[in-house]
């Protein structure tokens, strides 16, 4: 099971600011190892962020997103105690879901 994400969700005025740090190799498939073999591509392809079951951000990524991806954005609404849930799916069909409480 992949490592947990670090999610921070904070109320800023009437919006919720979400910052997420994901743990993922984001291997491009372009690198070679010490023996000259190509290291296979392994990267997050889809991301979904929901707040109370409403999608507040959805994304599709290629391997050019940096290793241990970081994203920050804001959405209107949200109240202290609400849950923000983030799911990613990678090209191995592995996925990870974590949630955070809006502070």
């Amino acid at each position: 099971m992949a490592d947990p994400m670090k999610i921070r969700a904070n109320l800023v005025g009437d919006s919720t600011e979400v910052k997420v740090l994901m743990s993922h190799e984001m291997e491009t498939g372009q690198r070679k190892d010490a023996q000259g073999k190509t290291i296979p591509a392994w990267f997050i392809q889809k991301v979904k962020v929901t707040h109370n079951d409403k999608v507040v951000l959805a994304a599709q990524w290629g391997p050019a997103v940096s290793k241990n991806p970081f994203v920050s954005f804001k959405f209107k609404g949200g109240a202290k105690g609400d849950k923000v849930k983030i799911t990613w799916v990678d090209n191995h069909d592995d996925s990870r879901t974590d949630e955070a409480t809006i502070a």
Partner: protein
Amino acid sequence: MRTMIRLAVAAGAAAVFAASTGAALGESTADEIAKYREALQDGNPAELWEARGEEMWKAPRGPNKVSFERCDLGLGPGVVKGAYAQLPRYFPDAKRVMDLETRLVWCMVRQQGMSEADALKNTFGDGSAKRSDLEALAAYVASQSQGIRMHVALDEPHVHDMYRLGEKMFYYRGGTHDFSCATCHGDDGKRIRLQDLPNLTKVEGARKAYTTWPAYRVSQGEVRTFQWRLNDCFRQQRFPELAFGSDASIALTAYLAGRANGAEYAGPAIKR
């Protein structure tokens, strides 16, 4: 006069070292790079290591199934807050001055029952999914000293001796290129390509440098510790390999940490 030396790095890539006298980066370039470094501060991947390290700290480990909560880093068993800011220090139970990593290994062997070989099996991660426990533990412990002023006990006789030894080592020239630490870090305005080299002989430089390790090193994709930093410096100076946790490594650490005394610890940081 500038001397250009072509060096072959272990990985096979060519590195160029320019020993310049006062040829620092242009202001606007330096500013832009400062902006780059600033922009990376938020969402430091080191936080992922800190989380892993915290879990490891609290979990029963090794044949004796003992957690690090019994490990005394100098402030009492299990006390992590502020521990990094007072290391290295002398530990009477080990009869040795130890830095964080050597103390962690000591606890792994003496308390958790691991063999030394097992404890040292994976000191530095290699950038792949195979990661180092020690780096995660170091990230966690160091994070608990954030904002606390460095206060290595330089007047303690054993630490004092290590400090003096480290100081000698700092200026000692050797290896195939007759380098010492001071060759790169003994003057203002030095750089290697676009990497500014801190002047560690000045208090300002010493403080800024020491208080930002461990750090998530982007180019490594890992959190790197001071043991790693010294090891890599030795490699670049074409010195023999600096053994992990050796007295040599602790002496240099004691010297550089001691010179940072009074500065607020700022790590784990994020670096190129």
